[in-house]
């Protein structure tokens, strides 16, 4: 038994102090404050930095030069590898870095200052770069090495984030070395026909690839993308539009590099000069004017309910018509399928047609597209994609007076041979309720493209 005495109480106090010691080391770690780099100011513009380098040479920076710029390209999508691209108001430059995953420290929009003393200037086939040293392993092709990760903070001072970047808008024939590593925008541009609908790079073999971009006037430039890029497997668009990219060179070759595919906005009509061409046009003017519609290439198929599309005319205009009237059928499904249309040699295809509804009580007409329909008598076995179209509706007491335009429906997501189908779904049961017998008239089905 412990007796109360001086010794024991001293002991107890020591125990207590030690206990407090134990409890106090259980505290959670304080989160560090947000980062504030040293406030250093640039004393050299990137344009003047370029003047310090002679192509093919390597120069060690011996003075306390500091440049500052905003990151315009990082490695978030792995198109830029172990490098970041920095730009100020006078020009841009590529910095070789000895690590990947750089965008976590140096994302696009972050302002950086680089202390150049001790770093090297050089160029990779004409593209000026900053690096840590010269790798002469292959004497024929000496190359700059990246700044080792432990030394990042020695040379690179991180500043504020989310600076706005406005690319400089130029034309292809404006591209020259003063724009190296700058963020630029070129308008009215499109991929060469042979390079449309191709992947940006070879994702299988992880190989980089060049795709040719052409201006509507003269001039062309390569878009270069890496096989490791996250978008390497995405296909190039067929349209015309603008591109935002980093300008780069490889010897005499002018190249653009994108950060990701949102840099490519090419959804407009191509600049073929001849304007848009008609890929398909059906105005039903050679159709029969009574009985089941018969037209070369078209399929008129009733899936359920025995109702087919009819050839009709009104005034001098002929058209197709469908309704579920007097069928005494619980379900009426009828298909009108176009001949195959080839989208392989065109871009920016637009589908349009006109409809009229009559005695609308809820039957539905929809337009579909398929690229795997076999042209046979069972279209419902194929894979169809519904297209968003404006279809005439709401004429409850009679026939609509005017044709309703469907609007221009873009087919640019499709290629190869496609079929367009009109699918009618209604009902005319014996009972008086749930009759859906609306009649629809269809005319002027067109596909244009360029």
């Amino acid at each position, binding site marked *: 038994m412990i007796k109360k005495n001086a*010794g024991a109480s001293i002991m107890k106090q020591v125990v207590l102090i030690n206990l407090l010691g134990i409890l106090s080391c259980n505290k959670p770690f304080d989160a560090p404050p947000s980062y504030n780099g040293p406030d250093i100011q640039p004393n050299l513009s990137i344009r003047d930095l370029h003047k310090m380098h002679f192509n093919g040479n390597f120069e060690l920076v011996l003075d306390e030069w500091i440049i500052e710029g905003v990151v315009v390209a990082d490695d978030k999508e792995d198109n830029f590898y172990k490098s970041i691209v920095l730009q100020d108001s006078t020009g841009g430059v590529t910095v070789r870095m000895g690590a990947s995953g750089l965008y976590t420290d140096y994302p696009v929009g972050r302002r950086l200052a680089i202390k150049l003393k001790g770093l090297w200037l050089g160029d990779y086939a004409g593209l000026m770069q900053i690096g840590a*040293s010269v790798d002469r392993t292959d004497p024929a092709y000496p190359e700059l090495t990246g700044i080792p*990760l432990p*030394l990042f903070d020695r040379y690179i001072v991180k500043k504020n984030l989310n600076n706005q970047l406005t690319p400089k808008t130029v034309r292809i024939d404006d591209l020259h070395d003063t724009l190296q590593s700058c963020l630029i925008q070129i308008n009215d541009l499109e991929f060469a026909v042979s390079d449309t609908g191709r992947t940006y790079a070879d*994702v299988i073999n992880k190989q980089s690839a060049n795709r040719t971009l052409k201006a509507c006037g003269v001039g062309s430039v390569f878009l270069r993308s890496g096989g490791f890029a996250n978008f*390497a497997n995405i296909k190039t668009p067929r349209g015309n539009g603008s591109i935002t990219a980093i300008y780069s060179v490889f010897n005499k070759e002018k190249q653009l590099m994108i950060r990701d595919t949102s840099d490519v906005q090419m959804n407009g009509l191509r600049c073929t000069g001849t304007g848009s061409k008609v890929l398909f046009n059906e105005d039903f003017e050679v159709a029969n004017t009574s009985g089941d519609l018969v037209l070369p290439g078209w399929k008129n198929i009733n899936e359920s309910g025995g109702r087919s599309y009819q050839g009709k005319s009104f005034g001098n205009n002929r058209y197709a018509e469908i309704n579920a009237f007097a069928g005494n059928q619980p379900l009426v499904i009828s298909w009108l399928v176009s001949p195959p249309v080839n989208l392989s040699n065109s871009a920016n295809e637009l589908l349009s047609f006109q409809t009229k509804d009559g005695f609308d009580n809820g039957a539905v007409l929809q337009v579909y597209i398929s690229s795997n329909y076999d042209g046979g008598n069972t279209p419902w076995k194929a894979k169809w994609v519904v297209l968003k179209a404006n279809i005439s509706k709401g004429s409850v007491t009679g026939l609509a007076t005017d044709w309703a335009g469907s609007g221009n429906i873009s087919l640019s997501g499709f290629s190869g041979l496609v079929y367009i189908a009109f699918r009618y779904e209604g009902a005319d049961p014996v009972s008086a309720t749930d009759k859906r017998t609306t009649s629809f008239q269809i005319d002027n089905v067109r596909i244009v493209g360029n």
Partner: protein
Amino acid sequence: MSKCMGLLISLCVVQGVSAQTKPVRKVVKNKFTDSLQALEAAADMVYELPVVTVNEQSRNDDNAPFLPSLLAANRDLVQTMAAFHFNVVRFRMRGYDQRFSETQINGISMNNPIDGNTQFGLWSGLNDVTRNTQSWLGWRNNEAAFGNIGHTTILDMRATKQRVQEQVSYAFSNRSFAHRWMFSKSRGMNKRGWAFTVSGSFRFADEGYMPGTGNRGYSYYVGIDKRLSNDRLLSIILFGSSSENGSQAAILKESADLAGTVFYNPNWGYQSGKKRNANISKGHQPVMIITHEQKMNNHSSLTSSLGICVGERSRTAMDWYRAPDPRPDYYRYLPGYQTDSMVRVNQLAIMSDDESLRQINWNRLYEVNRNTVESVSDADGIVGNTVSGMRSHYILEERVAAVKRIELSSVFHAPLNKALDFAGGISFQLQSARYFKKINDLLGGEFFVDWNQFAESDFPNDPLAIQNDIHHLNRIVRKGDVYGYDYGVNTQKANGWMQVNGSQKKIDYFAAVSLQYLYYQREGYMQNGLFPDNSLGRSEPNEFANYACKAGITYKINGRKYLYLYGGVLTQAPLFDDVFISPRTRDTKQEEIRNQTIRSVEAGYVWNAPSIKMRMSGYAAKLLNGMNITTFYHDGYMSFVNYALTGIDKLHFGAELGVDLKLSGKINLNAAASLGRYYESSRQLVTVTADNDAAVLERSVIYSQNYRVAGTPQEAYGLGIHYQSAGSFYLDITGSYFREQWIDYNPLRRTYAALENIQEGSDQWNRMIQQVKLPDQFTMDLSAGSSWRNHFFGSKLKRTLLFYLSINNLLNDRTIISGGYEQLRFDTDTKNPDKFPPKYFHAMGLNFSINISLRL
């Protein structure tokens, strides 16, 4: 097996016949039918031996299994020397892995059936109540268990087995803890048949010997005994040890040079002015054991126990997603990675000067996480659900092992006649373990996404491949959430053994057999996107039945000199860890699963005289058909691979000598030598599997024959002087010398593919295949102690004050390497073995512990 039974039966018969015809020697104490043991036990301790402190850091590294030879003092000279002085270089008796040793507390096994290791951490800090320990080496007979080729250690922690006392101790040390308080109180059995003991301790250090290794822990023990009748004793004990400590990593020589010290630890970095360790190990697995002992007439006894162990162990580590490796000793961050000498020199100068570049940059990790605002679409599997915010690219993960174990065991002991003893036991064990990881700290970010980033680059076109759990697509995980992997291992174990001990005038002998049954099964709780068909649910179970038998004979030359010979055969089931190739993601197993066969013999000479005690012995063991699995990054396949090895044969043989010589009444000389040769004696077969798609990439041969078993010196010599004054003062000085210590080799470098096109016998050839041997090493240890009995602190009663000091590595040699391994990486392009040099663990310099105890 039938051979075993035959042996046992014939021994019984022979004894039965002889017992009738010959006059039987008088058995002195029925407790000891083994003469050697009786003699050792008679030599009582004259002073209180220090208790070896298990170094918690060393145990936690996956790459370096570490066997504390013994937890308490033992009378065998070699074992004692090994426990107190050879530990510094992770000496293992006879070179055996820990899985070949067994530890029991009150009859309940303390080995984890999944990896075979004894979980010493379960009772660390309970030194006062774990002194009642017995240990047997090898096949030697004992009455508690069948044993194995390693140690069999049994602890009796029942309340009545504790010394009746009340004691407070304080220890101050510069080892893993700085301060340790311990209290224990034990009251002997009272008139009503009750006895109880309580003990507890707590220990802590802001920083242990190695930088960044803070730790703290507490332990507790309660034991109650109730004598039910004259011959029945019921006991219950409950104990547990909770610990938390920052760990030390093995390091490259280059890192040590850069830091200017071998005590460099890359695991920590400053955060808000304090050292924060990224690898914190935690554990708390309380154990409760109820024991019923019944003594019958005729000296028979039946002891039965029920043990339950429930708790968790965990370890934190860095995890990151699409960001640079945060570990400061990553090989690409070291100056040696730079090909250009100017950059190398420059980087070396800068990194030598600036400690922060050699440690974890926590501030940067927080900054990256706070600045990376990203969106995850279709989050949590809900189409159209976009989660935006600060996405953590660096996190601390916590790998957890949660274990529930229950065991029932019984040991029966009975004399068959005056010269023949029988002992036997049975045990059943069920364990259900769950392994998973969870987010420990988002490091300033708001969420993490449960994706497999390695699958992301390997399978860019398979959106499901990156999902660690396809039932929770694009799962957003936050602090405490389980992610990555989650699986269980269910184990069932049954064991039965029996043994006959005989004692005659000139010989003692024994024979024993054992049968074991083992069953295990993986149960996946996540359906992994890479392996949707074999990750979720229960795997095919594995079942194993094994046997073992052993026999031994001791010839008594006279009352002081003995010769003995033991031998045995054992088959042992492969461990779960050696069978399942990648249990985190799937239930794939090794292609061929075989039991390991072990054969071993041992012979020796013992001399116990008043002025000299010595043991001299020789042993040999063959271990056949071992298996092993490692997972590492393969530079040739540019992918993580599972390396499944089979056909690992080992040959261990050697000699041991222990001498305790009385030079005068006060001075003893102790000497111990362990001289062994441990070889990997086969060419191992490897099946290499891609971790991410389970494709078998190759099957090949590892040219491993005659490589040395690593991780322990094969030769260890100790020489000590012990001085005991007429009073209670004593002083021990011991020098230890270690030779022939090899490090774990990288099998990848010993394959045909690796050596193809390299000139045989060339310098590069030799550098690739040579196993790394550590230099010979020497340490010196000192310990001293004394006790006083007086009226301390003005108390009325006389009390005993005990003082004890231990200094290890007295010469403060900072070059001692305790172990190491070749990195499991090899540059298949350049075939330069020096690109990924070995990593080493360094032993502490001068380290001490001062212990003061007061018996109240």
